[in-house]
């Protein structure tokens, strides 16, 4: 009898527990509903629409219902027939690699410098951060003047030093390095701040202990700073890679993809295809292919983070 009553009591408690859990679950869903709605409206639906458009020939001047269905023709053309797609993809990768390596190295170096007991530290930090808050359009216009082969400042300095002048954005071989240099100058301050935050989260006791053990500056950097900064380095590497693969404004203003497509990036080509050639289907197919690359990069990031855990 006692057993039956205990069972009933347990069942009652179980139901009550489930009710509480159920209420909590409903509340939880309500809390995340705005985010879900946001994702659906601004991410998932446009994503599905993008896939749909990428399977059609559509110029945006006619209703989508009149667009011609092509199946995977846009993808086939881009991957197997269009040399410019691969060239712009290569350009985007080169830009991303140059940006990742140099921006990371320089922003870390500046962060280390500004993390030390430097005079006017706040002023230096603001100075390095300022380009980041400047419009990239303005930056591109200013730098196009700095790069000008005849009256540009850079060639003026080279001439003053008795060195041969350069063509910068007017040379197919020098245009991409010039673009990367501009991008580094623009973004260095932002990543410097992230590295500074990472550096300041490393406990000072670790350095104190290392000093007691007789570790020098280099040893402290290689054995303490870099390993403990790993999550920050990884984060910065992934963010720079993703943003670099999607670069548009700088090449658009500074070089318009030239000379001879040497700085034409995938997103710039996408823009030209959509809004100059009126090939919305092909442009969205490029967007999907870029998405695949970006998605793969994100998965790699998660994998690396999991390994760290």
């Amino acid at each position, binding site marked *: 009898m006692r057993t039956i009553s205990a069972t009933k009591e347990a069942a009652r408690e179980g139901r009550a527990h489930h009710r509480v859990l159920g209420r909590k679950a409903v509340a939880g869903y309500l809390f995340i509903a705005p985010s879900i709605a946001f994702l659906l409206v601004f991410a998932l639906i446009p994503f599905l629409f*993008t896939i749909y458009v990428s399977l059609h020939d559509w110029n945006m001047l*006619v209703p989508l219902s009149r667009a011609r269905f092509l199946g995977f023709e846009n993808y086939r053309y881009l991957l197997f027939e269009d040399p410019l797609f691969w060239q712009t993809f290569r350009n985007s990768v080169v830009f991303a690699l140059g940006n990742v390596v140099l921006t990371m190295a320089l922003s870390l170096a500046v962060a280390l410098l500004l993390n030390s007991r430097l005079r006017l530290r706040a002023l230096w930090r603001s100075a390095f951060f300022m380009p980041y808050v400047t419009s990239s359009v303005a930056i591109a216009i200013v730098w196009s003047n700095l790069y*000008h082969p*005849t009256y540009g400042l850079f060639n003026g300095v080279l001439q003053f030093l008795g060195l041969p002048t350069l063509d910068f954005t007017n040379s197919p071989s020098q245009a991409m390095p010039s673009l990367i240099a501009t991008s580094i100058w623009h973004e260095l301050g932002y990543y410097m701040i992230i590295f500074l935050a990472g550096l300041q989260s490393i406990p000072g006791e670790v350095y104190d202990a290392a000093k007691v053990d007789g570790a020098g500056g280099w040893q402290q950097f290689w054995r303490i700073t870099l390993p403990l900064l790993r999550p920050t380095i990884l984060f910065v590497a992934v963010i720079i890679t993703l943003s670099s693969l*999607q670069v548009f404004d700088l090449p658009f*203003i500074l070089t318009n993809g030239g000379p001879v497509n040497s700085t034409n990036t995938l997103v710039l080509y996408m823009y030209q295809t959509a809004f100059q050639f009126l090939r919305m289907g092909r442009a969205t197919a490029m*967007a999907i292919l870029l998405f695949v690359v*970006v998605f793969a990069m994100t998965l790699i*990031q*998660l994998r690396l983070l999991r390994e760290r855990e």
Partner: protein
Amino acid sequence: MSHYRINRRRFLQASAAALPALIAACGGAGTSTPTAPQAKPAITPTAAPHVSGPSGASVTLTVLTHWGDQSLLKALTPWFEECARKVNVRIVHQTVAFDQLLTKIMTGRLGGQSVDIYHFYNLWLPDFVGSDLLAPPPVDVVDDIKSSYGQGSVEGVTYNGQVWGYPTEVDSYQLIYNKRIFDEAGVDEVPKTWDDVRAAAKRCTKKDSNGKISQAGFMLIKGWDSGVVHPWLSLLWSNGGEFVSKDYSRALFNQQPGVQTLGFEMDLINDGSVNLGFGLEDFVSGKVAMTIMANWWGASLRASSLGIKSFGSAPIPYNDGHESVALQYNWLWGVDKNSPHADMAWKFIECLNSPRNGKASPMGEYLTTGLNALPSRLSDQKALANRINDPFIKPFVDALRNARTEPIIPGAQEIKTSLQKQIEAAWYKQKSPKEALDTAAQEADRILQEKRQ
């Protein structure tokens, strides 16, 4: 079970992280669209539409142009007011920058907010006509256009045998030269033939102590499709060449005359007379002796510190045995097919383009004052002769007599961009002229074939 949950969570994390990236990838271009680099004077969009006409008018027409600059609006609005009063309509004038005009037309159409009247570049005609965007003009308007405009301008607004709107601004290309540099170099006669150009360019070129060109004999404009292709096409036609076949089925620009034309440009580069790093501003500041450009650029030369009197213009140089032919292109007024007031829209446009008691039309007045451009209407060219016959502009007007209109073919913009890149590849010696033109022709043939389907 636990393992499955972790994987699913990770997948969701990855998806959530990647979706914004996708949106950025899809919308990267759209969300970050700064003003395009353009050689034409920058025209800024107005903050709000400008309204003209009687407030009691029952019909409101929306007009879209790229004339948003305050000085242009100041010159244009009185004419809009006058015609709006005559036709008894209210005009809502929307403006965007030139590089946003096509996008604005596309998005307006897509969002069901098309305007009634467009002012647009004639190269867009095949796409507009193919998409049923335009209403054909009434018969009397077509008759007026055919009888009152030059042949090149009529051809410039005709597609598939149908006239689609009133021609407005017409632009032609000529050789533009710096008189001071010619004088200093002892070039007494303006070059007429390709050989003359090469010889004069050599004499006008100066190099600095490093051997770099500090003053160029000739400037090839690069990085801008029209700046590369329009002068090249003028030279091609002045060498007896053709751009495409008459039935628009295949490109012909890679035949012998085309290869020779690109070869002529390569000769100028190989002679050391061209600095590919130079841009339009270098010409304006007096560092270049010659280039081939359109009449609208005269506004920049007029405003330069050197002044318009420092510059001259002359017919496009031709290859021996041929005659000079300039390229011309047009802008035109057209009416949206879905406009509920198409008849009133045509009346308004007709008013803008009709002579006023023997005087120039409102558009003629506006084009020659506000925009510094050439009017297409023959009666306007006559009535405004004092404005368009100054020594610099006159050769451009004269050139219209035998100028050829930029080919209005399906996929024209794409073909033009492809040709521009290939011509530049030859200039930078990445390809031979023949290889470059064959590649561009192959691409053009593919585009033409696709557009015919």
